[in-house]
């Protein structure tokens, strides 16, 4: 019997490279959007940082740039924190490297860590690897194809980044030496890509042994731990003793944009990364598929039972994650607080810097940890706490995505009640993360003999902002589709952060800049509060929840 039905998609010449012709092709096909987004946004960071440097009158002469450099050098290393060493910052390339060189790999390394923790372990959990490995492909081949697919996608992203960086160097070079050679831009891309891959390789190596979630946790610890250890090693001998574990510290003297290279350190990092990749491939080849029993006991505490109602169910499922987020952000806050004293002392010698900062922060007492927290933690900490809400929403959405909601809805409970209860559970998870962070901040401030009330209250307020973003996600999830809740909340949070950091440099109109809720919270870590932002956050959180409940009542389930 034959059939005229055409099912198989005709093979195209490039299907094996990008398409459904091979495991590699499919991996690259699935990664193409992420590659464009990562490369594009990383390039935008360079644009947003490079344009003001090339255009602002404060950097228009070498003398002015030299003054700026001296001011930076006079700051304690601890205060420079995530900015890294100021190498050749009197030129555009050096300034870009100094300003974003340490933070970009940490931000975009998330992509590698998430992708490489899930590429084998996550698919094994879904069961699709069972089918994939029943085809005539060896396990090693599947693992290597998936791995190389990600590496190529990341290479594409870094090429986009390098291209945009090169463009910035050509278009906004103001003084001699500002031009960025293509080789330097490419070299910086290689550095960023390798740093991203290094933490991803740890997640990849751990996946076959400990499963997707723990592998993700190990990758994230490596990613942020490496950055923080490098940035804050001078704070204490304890942190300094961890420097050999930091990939960022290893490559700290390799800054191609600043004209400084240390290729041996890059070779070592590449070697380490390859070793972790090899461990991951070997683990995948040798171990039972989907069997990830190692370290099964290692978990953060969660609420017992959680079967009383939808609030407790959500909260029980999210408690461990909420604690992890709170602890992770708390470690960063703790490091910032630990640098407070050094900062205050250095300011005593820098009256011109004090005058400059006073213009922006007229009421802040920089003798207190709360002042430092406002200056160096508020922005990034707010973003991270907001992203925790998006993370909790992705777990919440799984109820509908995996068909559990249909079972729950078969019980005598209205959609509105479920939405309000489960949404409240998600907001409660944000509260757990916030309270955990607040407790760590309070402890850190206490160890520095600082005033506790302001930073704790400030932490609660950025928690409210995080709840506001979560409320936006709940509204979208209820109105349209629950699977859109986390992306919506995450997108708005990141867009707000970018608006704050790049908006002014890009000379966006003031009404647009004012859309950022962070602009309307006052300076909460330092005790200056703005009720407009606080009320807006509350309205977004609970209004979003109510809107979501209204929407869920009116749409089809399981969309």
């Amino acid at each position, binding site marked *: 019997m034959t059939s005229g039905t055409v099912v198989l998609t005709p093979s195209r010449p490039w299907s094996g490279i990008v398409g459904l012709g091979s495991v590699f092709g499919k991996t690259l096909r699935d990664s193409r959007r992420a590659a464009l987004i990562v490369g594009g946004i990383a390039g935008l960071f360079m644009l947003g940082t490079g344009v003001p440097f090339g255009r602002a009158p404060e950097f228009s002469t070498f003398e002015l740039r030299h003054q700026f450099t001296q001011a930076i050098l006079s700051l304690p290393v601890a205060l420079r924190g995530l900015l890294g060493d100021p190498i050749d910052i009197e030129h555009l390339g050096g300034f870009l490297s100094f300003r974003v060189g340490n933070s970009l790999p940490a931000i975009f390394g998330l992509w590698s860590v998430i992708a490489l923790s899930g590429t084998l372990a996550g698919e094994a959990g879904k069961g*699709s690897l069972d089918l994939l490995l029943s085809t005539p492909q060896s396990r090693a081949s599947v693992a290597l194809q998936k791995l190389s697919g990600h590496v190529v996608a990341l290479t594409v992203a870094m090429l986009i980044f390098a291209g945009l960086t090169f463009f910035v160097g050509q278009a906004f070079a103001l003084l001699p030496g500002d031009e960025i050679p293509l080789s330097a831009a490419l070299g910086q891309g290689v550095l960023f890509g390798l740093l991203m891959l290094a933490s991803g390789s740890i997640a990849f190596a751990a996946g076959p042994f400990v499963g997707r979630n723990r592998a993700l946790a190990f990758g994230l610890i490596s990613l942020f731990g490496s950055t923080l250890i490098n940035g804050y090693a001078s704070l204490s001998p304890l942190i300094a003793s961890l420097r050999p574990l930091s990939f960022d510290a290893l490559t700290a003297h390799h800054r191609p944009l600043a004209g400084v290279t240390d290729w041996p350190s890059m070779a070592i990092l590449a070697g380490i990364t390859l070793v972790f990749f090899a461990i991951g491939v070997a683990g995948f080849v040798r171990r039972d598929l989907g069997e990830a029993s190692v370290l099964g006991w290692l978990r953060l505490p969660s609420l017992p039972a959680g079967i009383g109602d939808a609030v407790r169910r959500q909260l029980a499922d999210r408690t461990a994650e909420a604690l992890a987020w709170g602890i992770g952000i708390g470690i960063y806050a703790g490091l910032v607080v630990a640098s407070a004293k050094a900062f205050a002392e250095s300011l005593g010698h820098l009256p011109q810097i004090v005058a400059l900062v006073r213009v922006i922060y007229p009421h802040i007492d920089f003798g207190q940890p709360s002042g430092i927290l406002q200056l160096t933690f508020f922005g990034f900490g707010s973003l991270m706490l907001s992203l925790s809400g998006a993370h909790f929403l992705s777990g919440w959405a799984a109820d509908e995505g995996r068909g559990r909601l249909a079972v729950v809805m078969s019980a005598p409970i209205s959609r509105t009640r479920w939405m309000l209860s489960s949404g409240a559970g998600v907001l409660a998870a944000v509260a757990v993360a916030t309270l955990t962070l607040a407790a760590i901040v309070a402890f850190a401030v206490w160890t520095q003999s600082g005033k506790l009330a302001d930073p704790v209250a400030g932490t609660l307020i950025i928690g409210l902002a995080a709840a506001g973003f979560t409320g936006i996600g709940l509204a979208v999830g209820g109105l349209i589709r629950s699977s859109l809740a986390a992306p919506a909340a995450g997108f708005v949070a990141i867009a707000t952060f970018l608006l704050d950091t790049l908006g002014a440099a890009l000379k966006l109109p003031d009404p647009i800049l004012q859309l950022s809720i962070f602009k309307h919270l006052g300076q909460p870590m330092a005790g200056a509060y703005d009720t407009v932002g606080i009320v807006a956050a509350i309205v977004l959180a609970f209004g979003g929840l109510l809107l979501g409940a209204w929407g869920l009542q009116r749409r089809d389930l399981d969309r």
Partner: protein
Amino acid sequence: MTAVIHTERLTKMYGAHRGIVDVDLDVEGGEIFGFLGPNGAGKTTTMRILLDLIRPTSGRAEVFGIETTRDPVAIHRRVGYLPGEFDLYDRLTGADTITYFANLRGGVDPRYVGELVERLDLDPSRRFKEYSKGNKQKVGLVVAMQHQPDLLILDEPTAGLDPLVQASFYELVRDAKANGRTIFLSSHVIDEVDRTCDRVAIIREGRLVQVDRIETVRQLAFHHVELSFRQPVPTAIFESIDGVSAVEADGDVVRMRVNGPIGDVVVLAAQHGLVDVVSREPNLEDVFLAQYGAHAPTSETAA
């Protein structure tokens, strides 16, 4: 015939938990072999070892004479597999999914794929995440069968399929057998195995308890015999006959289980005013339930 699947004292432990224990199994070429057992008995574990998705704790397994851990790719070239539980790629359509696996295998006849899709009544244009459970199962079946493998390993293949599609599936399986292919399918649906398979293995708590041809296995079961008389008769007269058990009287009807020929029973009953005899053929379910220590339902309770 040559054994397509051969296992020797095959054992798999998950830490302290039992997977399968000392499983000795031979599946011959060209037969449909049913693997029967309740949830958690070890059916999926056995199948995943055959595909080298998991490795045995001890013992060995061979497919096409190749030890599973030695050259799994060579085995996979000739095998089609349908997992018991799977979730494929949400954003791909059914056609994309089938194409992807066809590309990974190579040598797939597009006309045969079209035929499979038609016979299973699958709309391949929808995204995988939009499919119902049954339609996802159909995609899995097409992926498993599209390259016309020498051996089909199907883990609960009819789960989620409607009766019409189930009938099409049985037809496909019979066609595969007619073409000399071997089918190894697991199920906990006894009727499915009873109607489809040539031989069956029953697995209980990780151990094989019975392997034989379906007809032979059936013979091991009791006949359920129901005798109607003109007036009530004492049950004791039947209890002394060899092979008779569970004799019950209900007015002028006597029911019993008979292991072996029922001639002696009928002869004796005829001497006591026998009006009617109903004897239900033993089926696989009776054997299965007997193996699990449960009573096979009588004709009344089964109804």
